[in-house]
């Protein structure tokens, strides 16, 4: 298949089946980008998330732009970005025009309650796998715990844990320690 079309369709598929925003998209990104295509490694996706978290804009869109740009420059990035928002634009336009009470339809609420459970399962599953591959040393565990606790209890902006962790990474390299 044409690579531009493939970028558009793959990201449209990701956009169609992810509920709950950026982080909930991670399992889908991993499946489609790392396993079904060879467009990014799981580590690269984490790096994209880190950059996306510190730059303006929607995380899922930023990640799509990254992956598209890496494959085929500005045009590839445009295909991936338009792909990831395309289904949402269509669905929301229909809802806003003709289904104003969409969120109050009982079947929608029931389906969505089930989907939320599935999204929680998918995210936890992704975290366990990421933990196994990226959180191996004492320093890595400390960084993980600190960012988890800071966000859970202090409601800090995610930018700070990311910048702090980058600094720790550089200091560890200076001292010849591995993360």
């Amino acid at each position, binding site marked *: 298949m044409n690579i531009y079309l493939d970028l558009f369709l793959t990201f449209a598929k990701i*956009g*169609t089946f992810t*509920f709950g*925003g950026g*982080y*909930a*998209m991670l*399992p889908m990104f991993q*499946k489609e980008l790392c396993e079904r295509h060879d467009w990014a490694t799981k*580590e690269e996706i984490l*790096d994209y*998330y*880190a950059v996306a978290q*510190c730059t*303006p*804009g*929607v*995380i899922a869109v930023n990640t799509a*732009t*990254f992956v598209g*740009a*890496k494959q085929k420059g500005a045009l590839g*990035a445009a295909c991936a*970005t338009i792909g990831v*928002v395309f*289904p*949402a*634009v269509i*669905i*929301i*336009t229909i*809802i*806003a*025009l003709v289904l104003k009470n969409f*969120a109050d339809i009982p079947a929608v609420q029931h*389906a*969505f309650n089930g*989907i*939320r*459970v599935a999204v*929680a*399962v*998918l*995210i936890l599953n*992704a975290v366990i796998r990421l933990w196994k591959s990226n*959180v191996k040393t004492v320093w*890595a565990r400390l960084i*993980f*715990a600190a960012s988890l606790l800071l*966000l*859970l209890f202090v409601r800090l902006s*995610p930018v700070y844990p*990311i910048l702090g*962790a*980058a600094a720790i*990474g*550089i200091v*560890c*390299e200076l001292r010849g320690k591995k*993360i």
Partner: protein
Amino acid sequence: MIYWQLFYEFFKIGLFAVGGGLATIPFLQELAEKYPWFDTAMLSNMIAVGESTPGPIGVNMATYAGVMAAGIPGGMIATFGLILPSYLSILLIARALEKFRENRWVNAAFMGVRPAVTGLIAVAGVSMLRVSLLNETAFAASGAWESLFLWREWILFAVLFAVMWKWKKLHPIVIIAAAAVVGIVFGL
């Protein structure tokens, strides 16, 4: 000219809302006060729709707001305005990153960042667990512990987790679709 206003306002949101979709809500509140496009009551409906439909929440909200303000072209222009700043900034960063990929210090920084991002994703998982498995409003109202736990959701959670664990190659779409069907059939 309403299209230009929409583009300008959502371009600004795309430029300044750092940290993902939900960061756009305060900006949308401001729009609700400044323009006659939608009011704050409609905004809460927009958030509900944005969260219960597929796609990035920030994009959902922009499309919804744009359609409310100026119909179908409005929705497209608002969405375009929202994603344009991230498209442009990420394009630049992606180029720079490609250049410095092999740089020792850039690499070291990312080695440190990966466990932090794993932690951030774990936080997203925890909050998703809270809203999907616990009924905190019922608990706050009644104070009865049995009202806190949504036991049918717990069973679904356990089953889906076991399925993911056993069949690691399963596509997330299958899990999501199955959970939606279970939700409708059992009236979750």
